[in-house]
C-alpha cells in the first residue's frame, strides 16, 4: 500500500528487481455440490513468492493442474489474486487503476500456448500484431504499419506478410506472429505460457532460438511456463518447480538437474522419456492426482512421495536453503540430494 504511493519515485532510481511476486494465493470457488454445505474451494496458488531481476528468465514447471497457468494469468493481471501481490518495477499491478494498468501493460506482454487459438482468424497479421498499440489508440496508421513490419522482421517473418490472415501460416509462423505481438510495445517482461508445446519438435527449436535471440538483443526477461524441463532449462536462469499451488523447489537449472532436493522434482526428471536401446520397457507408477482442496495437513506431496513419513503428514515443510540460490520445501531434502543424479542418465 505504501509502495503504491511512492511508486513514481521508486521508478526513477535504478530498480534491479523486475518482478516481485509475494505470497500469491488464488482460491477458486467451485459450483456448490450440496445445497447445505459450503461451496467447495480449490487453492490454485497457495503462497507463491518469486523474484526476477531484469534480463533474467524464470521457468515455472509442474504437471497439469499444478497452478502454472493460474500463476501466469495472475502475473499478467488477468485475474485478481485472493491475496498476495505482483509487483512489476515496484508497482503493485493489482492495485493500479484500470487506466494505469492499461498503460502499464506495455511493459509486460504474453505469448500463449496455442498458436491457432491465440490469433483472431478474422483479422490480418497487421491488425493482430498492432493490437497492443491500438489498445491505447495513439499511433497513426502509417507509423503503426512500419512498426509492425519492423517487429515482423525481428521474428523472422517478412513485411509482405502484413495483410495475410493467420490461416495462411504454419504453426511455427503463427507463434512467431504471436511473439511479434508481444514484442511490439518493447516490453521488459514476456510471460510465455507453454509457448512451444503445441509445435513440432523441429519448430520448437526454431521458436526457442528466436526467444533466446530476442532476449540477447533486447534484454528481455521471460517467465516461461512449461511442463517440459528441457525447454525451461534451455532458456531460463532459474527454475521454480510448482506442485499444487506451492513452489516445492527453486534454483538454477544445473542445481535442479544435478542435485534436486525435492522428490517431486526428481519424479519430474525421471518422467522425461529416454531412448535407451536394449533396455526393457518399464511401466511408470500410476500417479495419484491429489486434490488441491484445503483441509489437508502436512506436506502437499506426502500422498505421492515415496519418502513420506509421519512428520511429512503433519508438518508443512518450509522452503530451506540447500545451496546458493537453491531452495527446497522438503523435510528430507538432504536425503534426496544424496541420491544419484537422474540428470546423468538424461544426457
Amino acid at each position, binding site marked *: 500500500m505504501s509502495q503504491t504511493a511512492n511508486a513514481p519515485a521508486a521508478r526513477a532510481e535504478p530498480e534491479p528487481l523486475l518482478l516481485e511476486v509475494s505470497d500469491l494465493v488464488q482460491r477458486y470457488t467451485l459450483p456448490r455440490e450440496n445445497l447445505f454445505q459450503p461451496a467447495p474451494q480449490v487453492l490454485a496458488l497457495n503462497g507463491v513468492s518469486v523474484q526476477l531481476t531484469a534480463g533474467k528468465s524464470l521457468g515455472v514447471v509442474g504437471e497439469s493442474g499444478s497452478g502454472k497457468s493460474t500463476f501466469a494469468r495472475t502475473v*499478467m493481471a*488477468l485475474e485478481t489474486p485472493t491475496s498476495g501481490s505482483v509487483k512489476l518495477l515496484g508497482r503493485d499491478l493489482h492495485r493500479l487503476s*484500470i487506466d494505469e*494498468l*492499461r*498503460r502499464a*501493460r506495455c511493459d509486460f*506482454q*504474453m505469448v*500463449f*500456448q*496455442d498458436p*491457432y*487459438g*491465440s*490469433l*483472431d*482468424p*478474422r*483479422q490480418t497479421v497487421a491488425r*493482430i500484431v498492432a*493490437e*497492443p498499440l*491500438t*489498445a*491505447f489508440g495513439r499511433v497513426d496508421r502509417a507509423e503503426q504499419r512500419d512498426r509492425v513490419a519492423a517487429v515482423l522482421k525481428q521474428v*523472422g*517473418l*517478412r513485411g509482405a506478410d502484413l495483410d*495475410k*490472415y493467420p*490461416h*495462411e*501460416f*504454419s504453426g*511455427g*509462423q503463427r507463434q*512467431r506472429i*504471436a511473439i511479434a*505481438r508481444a514484442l511490439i510495445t518493447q516490453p521488459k517482461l514476456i510471460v510465455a505460457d507453454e509457448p512451444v508445446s503445441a509445435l513440432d519438435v*523441429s*519448430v520448437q*527449436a*526454431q521458436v526457442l*532460438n528466436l526467444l533466446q535471440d530476442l532476449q540477447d538483443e533486447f534484454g528481455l526477461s521471460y517467465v516461461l511456463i512449461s511442463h517440459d524441463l528441457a525447454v525451461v532449462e534451455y532458456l531460463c536462469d532459474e527454475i521454480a518447480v510448482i506442485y499444487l499451488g506451492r513452489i516445492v523447489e527453486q534454483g538454477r537449472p544445473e542445481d535442479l538437474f544435478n542435485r534436486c532436493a525435492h522428490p517431486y522434482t526428481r519424479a519430474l526428471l525421471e518422467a522425461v522419456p529416454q531412448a535407451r536401446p536394449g533396455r526393457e520397457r518399464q511401466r511408470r507408477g500410476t500417479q495419484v492426482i491429489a486434490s488441491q482442496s484445503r483441509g489437508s495437513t502436512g506436506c502437499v506431496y506426502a500422498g505421492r512421495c515415496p519418502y513420506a513419513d509421519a512428520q511429512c503428514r503433519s508438518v508443512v515443510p518450509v522452503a530451506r536453503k540447500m545451496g546458493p540460490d537453491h531452495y527446497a520445501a522438503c523435510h528430507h531434502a538432504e536425503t534426496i540430494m544424496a541420491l544419484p543424479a537422474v540428470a546423468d542418465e538424461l544426457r
Partner: protein
Amino acid sequence: MNGVQPTAAMPFDAPPPEAAVPSKPGRSGRGVLQRALRHRSFMIGGVLTLLVISAALLSTIWTPWPAYEIDLAHKLNPPSAMHWLGTDVLGRDIVSLLLVGARTSILVGVIAVGIGLLAGASLGLIAAARKGWIEELIMRLGDFTFAFPALLSAIMLAAVAGAGMVTSIAAIGIFQIPIFLRITRGSANAIWAREFVLAARVAGKGKFRITIEHVLPNILSILIVQATIQFALAILAEAALSYLGLGTQPPQPSWGRMLNDAQSLLFQSPLLAVYPGLAIATAVLGLNLLGDGLRDLFDPRLSRER
C-alpha cells in the same frame, strides 16, 4: 493436397520458406465464390429469394393492374391474356396482388428480423461480456419472452394496439428477440473462451472493444445464417397473422389475407388459394435453402483448411 514437405532439408534456424502454406491473394475470395456457385441449395435458395425480392421491388414501380382497383364486373375471372392469373372476388388482378403482397411480406420480415437481430444480438453480446447477474437477468427475460406463445402475444398486442401491420411487425419482432439472444450469447461465450480474447485483454483492451473487434466479427456469419432462416419464419408468421385477420388489414394486399379471402371460395375457385400459398412456399423455401447454403459456405471447417 499438401504432400510431405522436405522439412529435414531446411536449416533449423532459417525462417520457414514461403512455400509452407500456399498463399492466396486477399482472403480466398475466389474460392468462396466458386464454392457458392457449385453449392446447389445455396444457388436454388438464392434464385428463389431473388425472385421474391425482385417481385417486391417491381411492385413499387409497375404492376399489370392497379392492385387496389376493384372491378366487380370482372370478378373471379379465370386466367386470361388480360389477367394472367385471373381476378379475385373483388375483381382485383391476382398477379398485381401477389407482387404487392411480396412487398408486404418482405417489409414485415425485414423490420421484424431487424428488431429481433438488433435487440437480441446486443443483449446477447452484453450478456456474454458481462456475465454474472446481468447475464442471468437478460437470459431469464429472454426465456420469459420465449415461453410466451407468439400467436398469443400477437393477439394480445392486437387487442391493445389494434390489428394492423405495425402490430404484427412488433409481435413478430419481439418473438424473434430471444432466438437471436440465445444464439448470440452462446456463440459469443464460445469466442470469449478463445485465447485471442485473452491476448486482447493482455493488450489492454476493454470488454466493449473486445466485443466489437473480436466477438462480433467472429459470430457475424452465424447471425447472418440465423437471420435468413428467421426471415422465412417471419414471412410465415406474417401470413398466419394476416390470415387470422390480426396482421395486415384490407385493402392492403398480403399473401395471408389473400389466403383468407380465398378460403370462403375454396370450392368455387380453388386456384385462388393456390397462388398465395405457392408464393409463401417459394419465399420460405428460398430463404431456408439460402440459409442452409450460407451456413455451409461460412463453415470454418470448409473455408479454412488448417
